[in-house]
């Protein structure tokens, strides 16, 4: 039975939607890049590099959107420094406080991996980049990358927990949002990497693996959507009425259609050695639908609760 509160909406709107989307893609891409390095083989190096090259630029957008959403943008640093005492403003029980710190720290990991990817890919030749690349190649670098992946998971997931840690109807009536946003972020990140690698011959092998991973992420996301709706109880109608249905249709189109296309692509590639034009079309449509679904999911969760 949901708690009955009389909360007014905080008017978190487009900037926050953008922030949740890019935070998910940034964190998710880093995690994918790390998983490809840890568990993949030499043929996955190009896709892994691309994942890290996606992570940092998308992360850079996040603090800009967050700051623009503030009523007092020039006080963004109050998230980190207590203006009264001069000490650190760190409240582990406040997801927004944790998120601000995690965003800052994740930036370090994402930046180093970005530099390393630039160097490894031969895009830019600088001593600093080569140093980053050699650092990442070592054991300590591996540990560094894994710690960064934990931050990446947090960045992709905490936005859901942030909504839940409130008294807003819908958000606070469920415990599924953190997991749901994470699964959706990983799916969206896999779609981003697929989009970036679809024309690269050196990433064909990883392409197949990414499609398989995306299939699992989508299944996870679908299960969590069911959990999310099931936990809403009496406030379910708030998210399933009127114009929100359109967003849910996009969410479903962004999960079920790519799932079907991925399955078809896997079957085609199992029988055809060369990647044909049909498969190429599929590899464009499915990731685009996934990304639209990721955006629509966040939009329906953010806006319907405040309507």
């Amino acid at each position: 039975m949901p708690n009955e509160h009389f909360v007014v909406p905080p008017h978190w709107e487009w900037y926050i939607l953008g922030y949740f989307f890019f935070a998910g893609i940034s964190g998710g891409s880093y995690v994918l890049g790390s998983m490809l390095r840890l568990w993949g083989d030499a043929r996955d190096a190009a896709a892994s590099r691309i994942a890290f090259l996606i992570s940092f630029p998308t992360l850079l957008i996040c603090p800009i959107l967050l700051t623009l959403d503030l009523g007092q943008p020039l006080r963004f640093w109050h998230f980190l420094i207590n203006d009264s005492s001069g000490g650190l403003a760190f409240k582990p029980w406040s997801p927004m406080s944790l998120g601000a710190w995690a965003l800052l720290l994740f930036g370090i990991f994402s930046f180093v991996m970005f530099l390393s990817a630039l160097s490894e890919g031969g895009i830019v030749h600088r001593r600093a980049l080569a140093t980053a690349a050699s650092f990442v190649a070592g054991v300590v670098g591996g540990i560094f990358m894994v710690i960064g992946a934990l931050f990446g998971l947090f960045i992709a997931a905490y936005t859901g927990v942030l909504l839940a840690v409130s008294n807003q109807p819908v958000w606070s009536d469920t415990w599924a949002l953190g997991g749901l946003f994470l699964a959706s972020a990983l799916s969206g990140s896999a779609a981003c990497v697929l989009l970036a690698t679809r024309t690269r011959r050196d990433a064909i092998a990883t392409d197949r693996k990414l499609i398989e991973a995306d299939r699992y992420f989508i299944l996870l996301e679908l299960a969590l959507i069911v959990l999310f709706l099931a936990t809403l109880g009496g406030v379910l109608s708030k998210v399933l009425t009127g114009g929100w249905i359109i967003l849910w249709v996009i969410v479903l189109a962004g999960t079920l259609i790519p799932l079907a296309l991925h399955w078809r692509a896997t079957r085609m590639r199992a029988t055809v050695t060369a990647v044909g034009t049909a498969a190429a079309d599929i590899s464009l449509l499915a990731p685009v639908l996934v990304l639209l679904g990721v955006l629509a999911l966040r939009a329906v969760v953010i806006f319907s609760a405040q309507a």
Partner: protein
Amino acid sequence: MAQTVGFFTDTTLCIGCKACEVACKEWNQLPNNPLEFRDSYDNTGQLDHANWRHVRFVESAATNPDKPIAWSMMSDVCKHCANASCLEVCPTDAIIRTEFDTVYIQQDVCNGCRDCISACPYGVIGFNSTSGTAQKCTFCYDRLQNNLKPACATACPTQSIKFGPLDELRQTAATRLATLQAQGVSQARIYGDKEYGGLHAFFLITEKPEAYALPSTQSAVLPSRNNLPGYVTATITAVLAGLAGLIAFRRRGEPPAAQTPPSGT
């Protein structure tokens, strides 16, 4: 530390004159409300950044056929909860507890993130787009520091709003409740002795709490209750996603791909 103070609002004494609203606006220099007609004498509407007192007109069906509507008036205000949801979530420590045990938003620290607005279960806090900050009742902090009663309690002509040391107010409320119940007002009850660790602005009410837009005792829960289940679900999802990655990305012992020319990255 100064004495813990509170408001005891006895709704059975409120006549809906709105002197408290006017006094609050005047002392705190809050902007006027835009003229708006509503289906009630309540033309304030709700508590927000510009209305720190709000006289609620709770309408219900009456038993007297000549007067089909019965009104219960209540002067609503920030509850200055002992366990305050807004203070709990505020990421910048802009919301503090004062030496009078009241909850106060430091206007020079607040950066307008609005997390407190989504947390307050009473819908008390509003966002001021001019200052870019969250605002609510300060319990007339400046007046308290100068040994003055808050403006609303000073102006209330019927003593519906009582101000004083919290312990004394609780005793006053218990006595008043016993009197009303002895007079046959059996539905009278105190709201705010248990909710959120005890509200520092508490009420004597004669309807269900929800009728005054007050969450029931069972619903009076803090935002942090969702921290653990939220992170646990995310962690389980992360583990499952990791397994999915392991299955999908694992080395499969396939022959190395043909040498391909570098293409930029």
